[in-house]
């Protein structure tokens, strides 16, 4: 007799364990779905399916609660007839209505042991008729709560009458918790998406504002630079030597200001997606030589040697010649600006389907940390040098965008204290402007 009792106990324990293992497996599956799937519908469908299977009920549904309308909207169902799904979809459950609405209102599980007897069980006539026709007799509603906030409900149906055992209520509460997390995640995700869109719009407005502003700033500057030149050229009469020197200073500062405004305008146009490349055939050799002509004086003023090495017989390229020249001019200009002793070397060659142009200097070099951010707006390697060396810190980010619009890339190699090499690579033939980088 003792053996029989032990054997039965063992059997019961084994069944319990098997059931526990099954529960754990289901929960881990649900957990994976919650953390890996962004699609709320899919996650909730997985949850309600496992909840119904493990609780041995006939079918179940998950609702999401809408605080604005105080209604529960059907989001997923398992083993529920299409008829009933349609009824529940057409007319959302109101707060306080039926097992679901009461569970939400009271923030505790609410069961209806017999739908035909329970006086508290108030639902629409259509829902009642449909439930009766399909033979559902008992219902359990579990609220989905985040703190005390209603997020939705998990509701299961049975064809037999009677109370729901506490293990089932507990089990379903675990699934309810998972559903709450899924709904909460989905809402956060939607919120972030909306915020992202708002930010994008705000950023476009900012770029448009900058573009307009820099245009407006240039108009009076035109007058300042124009009159300065007329004064310098003596069309208002000869200037005393001292005044002439001052006019030259005004001219230099005015042109510096103009350079800054142009950089801001350039960048804001690129940011606003308004920069269109003018694609045409060009000669890389000519670009290099045009840039060289512009910087030769600057280099010799500082006593720097310029070396140029353009590979022979390069094929004609296709791209925006002026913009590519602007990129190279920026790189060479920087190299000269930041190098006090030594040389600046320009190399241009073809590597497969791409042109590679690099500018090597014997300047101070750039630390690893600075190499990361040097292509970002308003960043220079050493912010204290901004004042010493001038410039907006926009040149490299403009260069980067121009190269990217050509479908290419720009990078820097440097050993701190031993100079830097800035290089960019663009396809030889660019037939179409790349999407914004």
């Amino acid at each position, binding site marked *: 007799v003792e053996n029989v009792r032990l054997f039965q106990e063992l059997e019961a324990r084994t069944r319990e364990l098997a059931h526990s293992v099954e529960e754990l497996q289901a929960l881990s599956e649900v957990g994976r779905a919650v953390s890996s799937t962004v699609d709320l519908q899919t996650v909730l469908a997985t949850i309600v399916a496992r909840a119904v299977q493990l609780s041995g009920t006939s079918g179940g549904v998950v609702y999401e609660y809408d605080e604005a309308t105080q209604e529960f909207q059907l989001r997923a169902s398992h083993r529920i007839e299409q008829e009933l799904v349609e009824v529940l979809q057409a007319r959302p459950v109101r707060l306080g209505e039926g097992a679901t609405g009461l569970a939400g209102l009271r923030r505790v599980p609410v069961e209806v042991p017999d739908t035909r007897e329970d006086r508290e069980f108030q639902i629409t006539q259509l829902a009642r008729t449909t439930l009766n026709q399909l033979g559902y007799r008992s219902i359990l509603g579990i609220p989905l709560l985040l703190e005390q906030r209603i997020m939705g409900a998990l509701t299961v149906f049975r064809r037999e009458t009677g109370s729901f055992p506490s293990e089932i209520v507990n089990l379903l509460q675990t699934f309810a918790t998972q559903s709450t997390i899924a709904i909460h995640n989905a809402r956060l995700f939607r919120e972030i998406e909306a915020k992202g869109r708002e930010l994008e719009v705000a950023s476009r407005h900012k770029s448009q504002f900058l573009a307009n502003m820099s245009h407006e700033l*240039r*108009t*009076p500057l035109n007058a300042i630079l*124009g009159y300065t030149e007329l004064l310098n050229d003596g*069309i208002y009469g000869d200037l005393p030597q001292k005044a002439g020197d001052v006019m030259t200073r005004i001219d230099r500062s005015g042109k510096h200001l103009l350079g800054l405004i142009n950089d801001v305008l350039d960048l804001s146009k690129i940011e606003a997606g308004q920069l269109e490349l003018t694609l045409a055939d060009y000669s890389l050799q000519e670009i290099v030589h045009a840039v060289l002509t512009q910087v030769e004086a600057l280099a010799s003023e500082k006593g720097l040697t310029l070396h140029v090495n353009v590979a022979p017989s390069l094929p004609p390229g296709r791209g925006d010649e002026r913009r590519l020249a602007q990129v190279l001019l920026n790189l060479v200009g920087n190299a000269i600006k930041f190098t006090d002793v030594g040389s600046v070397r320009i190399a241009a060659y073809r590597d497969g389907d791409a042109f590679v142009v690099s500018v090597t200097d014997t300047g101070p070099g750039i630390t690893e940390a600075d190499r990361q951010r040097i292509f970002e707006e308003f960043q220079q390697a050493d912010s204290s040098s901004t004042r010493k060396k001038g410039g907006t810190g926009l040149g490299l980010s403009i260069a980067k965008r121009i190269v990217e619009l050509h479908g290419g890339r720009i990078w820097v190699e440097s050993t701190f204290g031993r100079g830097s090499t800035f290089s960019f690579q663009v396809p030889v033939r660019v037939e179409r402007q790349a999407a914004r980088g």
Partner: protein
Amino acid sequence: LIEPGADVEEPDVAKRILVIEDHEENRRIMRDLLTHAGYEMLEAVTGEDGIVAAGLERPDLILMDIQLPGLDGYDTTRRIKADPALRPIPIIAVTSYALSGDDQKALAAGCDAYVTKPFSPRALLGKIREFLG
């Protein structure tokens, strides 16, 4: 003998340049520059007035600002160039920033040359002399 009003070039008479520009300061800079260089300057503030002035005055050259209120510099140029009697008059466009692409649009509209704003009066004069000698 030359009849008064006959359509004949007189070497001693100053060449006449029509400036179509809405900004007062820019017109004044051009006036100081062109007058000093020995040209006669005619002025129009809008594209519409510029077209009328071009037809009445038959200037030797037109300086066309691109960003004009109402009819812009492109359309004004197109209308002037559409008139066979005015077509030979060279038009130099004064475009905004060089990299804006305005210069290509100006040439496409029929302008004969362009300078970019902020223009250097010296460079502008050089460009005018290419056409008027």
